[in-house]
C-alpha cells in the first residue's frame, strides 16, 4: 500500500493552483487534508500525475458569519467548526452533524472542501450542504461560479467540479434562531460513515404549523438528497406524532437504498424511517 508515484506542488496562490490543475489535463488532483485522498492513493484506486497542495494558500480557512449566512472556507476543518462557539449558536444543525465526523486526529486535518469534493454518499458535510440549500463557490481558469449543492453532487464520489476547478467556499443560508431542527445518524461504530442519516428542519408559521420543511438524507442513495415528497407531507401540518409517522413512512418509500455488506435495502429503508421520526421528534423540543 505504498502510494503510486506523483509530482507535488504547493502553490502560494489560488491562481497558481488553478493553473496547475489546468496544466494537468485532468490528471492532477487537489490535496487538502488528505484524509480521504491519501487512503485512495494507498489502495492505488487513483493514479494522479500531480498533487496540488492548497495548504499554503491564504484565505481559504476562514469561518464568516454575517447577514448573508454562514461562509466556510474550503480548508476549514472539523475541529475548527467544533471550537467555534459562535458558529454552533449560528447554525446548530451544522454543529450537530459535525459531531459525528470521524475521529479526533482526523478532525484536525479533514476539511469542508475536501469532504464536499470527495462526495461520499454517506458523508455529513455534503448532507448538510444539500439539506440546507447550500451553495458552493468553485474557482477555475475562467473565474468563479456559484453552484447550488442540490446540483453539485451527481453520484457516488462524483461532482460537478471540473478537473481544473477547486472549491473555495461553501455558503449556508442564514439560520433563524426560532427554527426547529433535528439531526440523527446511525453508524455501526462511533465515527464510521453513516448507514443512514437525517438532517431535518422546519419553521413554524403563525398557526403553529410546519413550513419550509427540509428533510435531507445521507447514506440511503447515491448522493445526499432532500426528500421533497416527505417534506410535502409535513408542510402545512401541526408536527404531532401522526404527522411525524406519516412523514417517516413516505421517506422510507421514496428512497432506493443500496444493498451492501453493512445492511440490506429493506433494513436501510426502515432505519431511515426510524431516523426521520427521531429527528422530527427531537425537533419538536426547543433546543
Amino acid at each position, binding site marked *: 500500500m505504498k502510494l503510486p*508515484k506523483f509530482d507535488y506542488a504547493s502553490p502560494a496562490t489560488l491562481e497558481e493552483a488553478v493553473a496547475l490543475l489546468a496544466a494537468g489535463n485532468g490528471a492532477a488532483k487537489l490535496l487538502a487534508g488528505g484524509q480521504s485522498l491519501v*487512503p485512495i492513493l494507498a489502495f*492505488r484506486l487513483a493514479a494522479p500525475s500531480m498533487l496540488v497542495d492548497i495548504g499554503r494558500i491564504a484565505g481559504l480557512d476562514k469561518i464568516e458569519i454575517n447577514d448573508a449566512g454562514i461562509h466556510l472556507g474550503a480548508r476549514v476543518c472539523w475541529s475548527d467548526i467544533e471550537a467555534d462557539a459562535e458558529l454552533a449558536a449560528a447554525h446548530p444543525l451544522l454543529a450537530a452533524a459535525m459531531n459525528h465526523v470521524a475521529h479526533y486526529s482526523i478532525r484536525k486535518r479533514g476539511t469542508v472542501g475536501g469532504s464536499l469534493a470527495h462526495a461520499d454518499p454517506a458523508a455529513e458535510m455534503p448532507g448538510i450542504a444539500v439539506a440546507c440549500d447550500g451553495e458552493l463557490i468553485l474557482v477555475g481558469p475562467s473565474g468563479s461560479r456559484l453552484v447550488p449543492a442540490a446540483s453539485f453532487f451527481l453520484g457516488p464520489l462524483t461532482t460537478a467540479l471540473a478537473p481544473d476547478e477547486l472549491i473555495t467556499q461553501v455558503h449556508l443560508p442564514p439560520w433563524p434562531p426560532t427554527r426547529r431542527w433535528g439531526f440523527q445518524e*446511525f453508524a*455501526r461504530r462511533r*465515527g464510521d460513515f453513516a448507514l443512514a442519516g437525517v438532517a431535518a428542519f422546519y419553521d413554524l408559521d403563525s398557526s403553529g404549523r410546519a413550513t419550509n420543511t427540509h428533510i435531507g438524507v445521507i447514506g440511503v442513495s447515491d448522493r445526499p438528497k432532500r426528500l421533497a415528497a416527505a417534506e410535502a407531507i409535513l408542510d402545512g401540518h401541526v408536527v404531532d406524532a401522526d404527522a411525524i409517522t406519516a412523514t417517516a413512512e413516505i421517506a422510507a418509500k421514496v428512497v432506493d437504498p443500496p444493498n451492501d*455488506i453493512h445492511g440490506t435495502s*429493506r433494513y436501510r429503508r426502515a432505519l431511515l424511517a*426510524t431516523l426521520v*421520526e427521531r429527528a422530527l421528534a427531537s425537533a419538536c423540543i426547543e433546543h
Partner: protein
Amino acid sequence: MKSVNTYVGQPIERVEDLRLLRGRGQFVDDLHFDGMLHAAILRSSVPHGRLLRVDTTAATALAGVVTVVTAAEVGNPVPTIPLRLAPMAGLIPYEQPVIATGKVRYVGEPIAVVIAESAAIAEDALELITLEIEALPPCVDTRTAAANRSLLFEEMGTNLAATYTAVLGDAASAFVAATTDEFRVCRERFDTQRHTATTMETRGLIGVWDDKTQHLTVYGAAKVPFASRGILARQIGLPESSIDLIEGDVGGGFGMRGEFYPEDFLIPFAARHVNRPVKWIEDRREHLLACNHAREFDCDLELLCKRDGTILAIRGQINGNIGAYIRANATIAPRNVALCLSGPYRIPNIYIESTMLVTNKTPTGTYRGPGRFEGDFFRERLFDIAAKDLGIDPVVFRRHNLLTKDELPSKLPVLTPVPQQEELDCGDYLQTLDRCLAEFDWSGKVKLNGRLIDGRYHGIGIGCFIEGGAVGPRENARMVVEGDGSVSVYVGSAIVGQGLETVCAQIAADALEMPMEQIRIFHGSTTYVQEGFGSFASRSTVMGGSAIIATAEKLKETIRTAAALRLNCAAEDIVLQPGLAISPDGNAVRWPDLAPEHLQAAGTFSSTRRTYGYGAHAAHVSVDPGTGRVEVLDYVAVGDVGRIVNPMTLKGQIVGAIVQGLGSTFLEHLVYDQEGQLLTGSFADYLLPTASDYPNIRVYDQEEYPSSNNPLGAKGAGEGGIVPVGGVIANAIASALGVQPRSLPMSPSRVWELINC
C-alpha cells in the same frame, strides 16, 4: 518452588513495558540491514483458475527491480506446506504450494515475488506482471463445495478433504429409544461467520543469507519458531543447524501469526537467491487476504432430552469452510468444534461429524479458542432453545446438566482420525456458574427479560465453558549464571505480546529465590535452546513456566555441588542467597566465581495431559428495535484458571479476549461475494471493536482448583475469555426480543431482520 512466593501471584508490572512504552520495541519492520532489498508479492485476483502464464519481463525491466521470483525459480517440484498439527496422509494432496503453480485457488494466492530496492518500487512492479489465467467456476460455500461440481483438486475427486467423528456412548441408540412423550428432540441449524485474529502488527519477515557460512537467518518468527525452522529446512534443502529463526517483539498473535505460510519460504528463499537481505512487510490489505482466516462453520444439530431437561444425547454434522488449502494448523478448529462441543456438560451420548471442505477462499487456521467459540455458540443456543421448548428456566437447565466436581475427571468424546481422547481434569463448574449469577445479579435482572424500557428491549443471557490448554509434549529451558551474578533464562516458549517475559521472570525469580531484576528472559528464537515448542493453545505459562521450574531446581543443585567442593562441606548444607552460596561455617562464594566457565543447567517439562480452565459468562443487553443496535449494558466473566501467576496480566488477557469475542459477535466479518472476491478488504469494511463499543465488562478470576498436571498448578488462560461470548450474547438477544438468532454476526441489519421477518 519455595513455599512462600514473592512474585508468583503478584500483579508485577511488566519488564517488556519499559521498551514498548518508549517506542523502543524491536518489531520486524524496525530492523534494518545494509544492502537490504524489499519484496512485494503478486497475489491472484482470480479465485479459481488454471495458471497458464506468468510474464515478468516488464516488471524485471523496471528501474530498481532486482528480480522476480515465480514457481519457475523455486524449482520443480514446488515445496508444499506440511501440516504441523494432527497431520494425515489423506490431507497431503490439499497442502498449499509455497507459490502458485498450475492452478490458483483463492484470491490472494501468491503468484510472484518482486525483489526491488524499495517496497514502493516493488509494488509498482506488481502492476507490470501479466498473467494468463483460465478462470474456473469458484465455490465459496460448503454446500456448493460438497456438491463437487467444481473441484479444487481434480485428482482428489472431492472437495471433502476430511471428516472427523467425535463419539461418546451410543447416540444412535439413544435417539432410536426416544419414542415417547417422555423425550424431546430439539433440532437446529446454526452458523458462525468467517473472521480472523487481525493483529495490529501485520506479518513481516527479513531473510538474511550468509554465503560464506551458508547460514540462513530469518527475522520475524513467532509462536512456533522451531517447528517453522524444521519445515523451512526441508523445503529449502538446508540442515536445521544452518537456519536460525529469530523472534523479536511481536504485535499480537492470537493463533494466527507464526504458523508456516508461503512467505515463510518465499522470503528466505529470495534472500538466498539474490544473496542480499530481503525484507517483506505485509500491508493491511494483504493481511486481510493472506493471513489465516477462521471460524466459518455451519451445523445441523439435534439435542435429545428428557422432559425434565436431562440431556441424553447430541448428534449432528458440522461443516467447516476451510478455504483453498489445508494449512499448517487448519485441522485444529474442525477437530475442536466436535471434540469440545459438550463443554462442561454431562452429555452421555455424542455423535458429531465434522467435515473439512475446501473452497475458493483464503485458507483457514486457528484463531483464539479455535473451534470452541463456534461450538459454544452452537451449544449454548441449542440449550436455550431446548430449555424454552421444555418450559425450563435456562439457568436451571444448565445447573441440571453441568458435570459436578465429583464426576471429574470426565472423558470427552473420542475424536478420530488421528485419535484424540481428552479428559476434563478438575474443577467445580457449578461454583463458577453460581458466582457468575451472583456477581451479575441474575435474579435481580431476570425480570427485565423482554421488557421495553425507554424504547429498548432488555434481555439477559448465560453460558458455561471450558478452556483447553497446556498442550504438550514438552518445553525446554536453559539457565546461565552471568558474570555479575544475574541469571539468564532461555526458554522455548514464544512471545506474542502476552506478557510472557514477565510471567517467566516471576516464576524464575521465585524458583531461584532471587530478585526479578537479576533475571533476564530470552524467548522464542532457535538460537536459545536446542528444541522449543512455542506458544499456542494457552500453553506457555504452564509448559514454559514448568520448564523454568525444573531448570531452576537443576541449577540450584549444580550451584550447591560446586559450592560444596569449594567450601568443603556437604551440598545439602549449602544455603543459597541471591548470587551467593554460603557454607554452615559462614564462608561464602559468589556464584560466578564457582567455575571458570558460566555455570548452567538445562531442564525440560513434559506433559501430555491438558488442563481445563472453566467458568461462566453472563450478559445484559438492550436492543433498539428501530435500528437493530445492541448495547451491552453489563458483561460478567467468571473463570477459574487453577493458579494465578500474575493477576494483572491474566485479567488483561481475559478482557482483551472478551472484547475480541464481542467483535466476533457483532462486527467482524470477512465477506465474500459469490464470485469468490473478498469484499471486506480494509478496515473501513472489516470492523474491529473500538474503545467506545464495549466498556461495561467485569472480570472475576479465581484459582480454586489447581491443575495436578504441573508444578505451578496453572491451567492455560489465554483463550477462555473469548469462548462463550457468542452464545451468551445471542442468548441475551433472544431473551430480549423473543426471536432465535442462529447466525453470527449480530449486526444491526441482521438483528432488525430477525425482528421483522
